[in-house]
């Protein structure tokens, strides 16, 4: 089933064109990894699909145009899991999760018992109940990411859009987070996440989209898209895609160790 469908999406910041003619479809049950160099427009595309930026072209959710949804309705379908970030004011983890229920509250009414219970359940699901009363900013990057995922669960959205979810996490937490995504995917959640790690895409996604300088290079099944050639085109580095005896694929850098940062386009300030 098609959940989100973007057709011919374009976007510019002021005079700078960031996205050109993007076609993309997110199907129910997908775990899509969005790969691309710094400044290729990944986060921008994510925010367009969330309805945060108005783009040219057309984005539909369940066949209805994004701009025809109210903000709260949209939030009941799609949740945003941002990169863990510092909050200037210290909310507790539980307060942060409770904010996932805003889309269900009347403008002037308070959170109900149901809302509080759902927030508790969500924290339970990511095994963060013990730290519910801790100030969010005291948590480690991995714990913050889990709390933000719990907030998306409390939001009862079935589509989760994640912006570099493993950014800043240690290796163990990265793998645990990817497993969590796999796990929730089997429970019926749909994921679209941006990432800088081809290995992570190989490990937990069924489809991969490649974005370079605002254009979609490829968007298809993992094995078709994540080839050594495509990664060379995308990042300008040589890699080899290897396969273990169990059939698990992984990506290994190879070739001469030339240090040529010019191959990577300079990060565009806007993204």
């Amino acid at each position: 089933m098609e959940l989100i469908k973007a057709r011919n999406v374009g976007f510019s910041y002021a005079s700078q064109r960031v996205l050109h003619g993007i076609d993309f479809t997110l199907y129910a049950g997908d775990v899509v990894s969005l790969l691309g160099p710094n400044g290729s427009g990944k986060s921008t595309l994510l925010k367009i699909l969330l309805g945060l930026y108005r783009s040219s072209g057309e984005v539909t959710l369940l066949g209805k145009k994004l701009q025809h949804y109210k903000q709260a309705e949209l939030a009941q379908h799609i949740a945003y899991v941002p990169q863990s970030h510092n909050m200037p004011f210290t909310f507790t983890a539980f307060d942060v999760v409770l904010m996932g229920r805003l889309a269900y509250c009347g403008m002037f009414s308070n959170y109900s018992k149901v809302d509080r219970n759902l927030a508790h359940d969500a924290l339970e699901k990511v095994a963060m109940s013990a730290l519910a009363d801790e100030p969010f900013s005291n948590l480690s990057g991995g714990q913050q990411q889990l709390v933000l995922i719990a907030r998306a669960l409390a939001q009862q959205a079935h589509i989760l859009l994640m912006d570099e979810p493993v950014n800043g996490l240690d290796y163990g937490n990265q793998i645990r987070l990817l497993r969590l995504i796999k796990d929730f995917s089997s429970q019926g959640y749909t994921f679209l996440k941006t990432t800088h790690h081809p290995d992570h895409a190989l490990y937990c996604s069924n489809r991969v989209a490649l974005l370079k300088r605002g254009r979609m290079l490829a968007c298809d099944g993992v094995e078709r898209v994540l080839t050594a050639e495509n990664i060379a085109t995308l990042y300008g580095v040589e890699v080899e895609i290897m396969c273990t005896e169990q059939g698990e694929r992984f990506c290994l850098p190879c070739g001469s160790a030339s240090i040529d940062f010019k191959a990577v386009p300079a990060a565009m300030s806007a993204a």
Partner: protein
Amino acid sequence: MVRAQADIASGVTLQQRQEVRLRKEQWVFFVLVMLLLAVMQMSLLLGKYPISADEYLAFAKLYVTGHGAEAAQRFSTLYSVLVEIRLPRIIAASIIGAALAVAGSTFQAMFVNPLVSPGLLGVLAGASFGAALGMVLRLPWFGIQLAAFVCGALAVALALLIAMIYKNSRSVIILILGGVISSSLFTALLSVLKYTADPYDTLPAIVYWLMGSLSFCDSATVGLLFGPMLAALIGLLLLAKQLNALSLGDEEARALGVNVRRIKVIAITLATLISALCVVMAGVIGWIGLIIPHIARMLFGADNRKVLPASALIGAIFLLVTDNLSRTLFINEVPIGILTSLVGIPIFVLVLKNAREGFK
């Protein structure tokens, strides 16, 4: 975190811990309400005209039991001192203190900045200019109040207009800059008025008014403005949930389903309304909108559902106490704006260490 793990080891569930915390917070609120009532009561008895306890009790008994007319007749001096002079002033001090503190908390959450005060968008500068203009034009008292209110609203409108010119830029910073520009403009215009004002009567009146005083509040003004101020105050308290989301940043708040634009428009309108009305009632009273939110966050954390009502209570208590000082400290009344700063600054320095826990 150590505490949390120790609790798990001892079998205390999250719900139980949260209930304990909730009860603690309810206690703090109860204490604050009691404190406010006590300070209000004390303020009634404080003042130049000495009131004996017996007399007061006899009068209060009559007055509260619905024999107001009889009370007024038997204790005519007491009636005019208490009901006509002190009571309106106490009500004004409470509502102004509460309003400025809540407006400050709202702006700090909305602009994601703990250093912001209600005057951010220019409302205080605008209202000051308006009042001075009224005085220079020798308008009647009501005209001066109206001019203060209108110019306060105008200054905020100007700040918003400047922000709207640069629609696609980072809205919060542009909005703050719009406020800075608008404030500067009206401050400059105010200087022009001060320079041209009659130095023997109008200029002192303007200067005195800029230092703030609750002695401007007659019962008619209080009676007229109390209702709208209370309504706007309650309106802001009801936005607490959405303000929490706004302090995560606009995009995240929208992704959570909050209609950011609408909430901002309502919050700015209500905060401007109450700030302008505060100036109309008592001139310019600084510091409350900046420091009281910090004290509230020190007690309750960042959650605006608690910070806003706590700010209201603490702000009311603070202004009442300061006003009592201003009335009784010296033979002549000290302008309250001076005292809120002089009393507020040491308190702020003292709480700053702990208040820093409320924001990072």
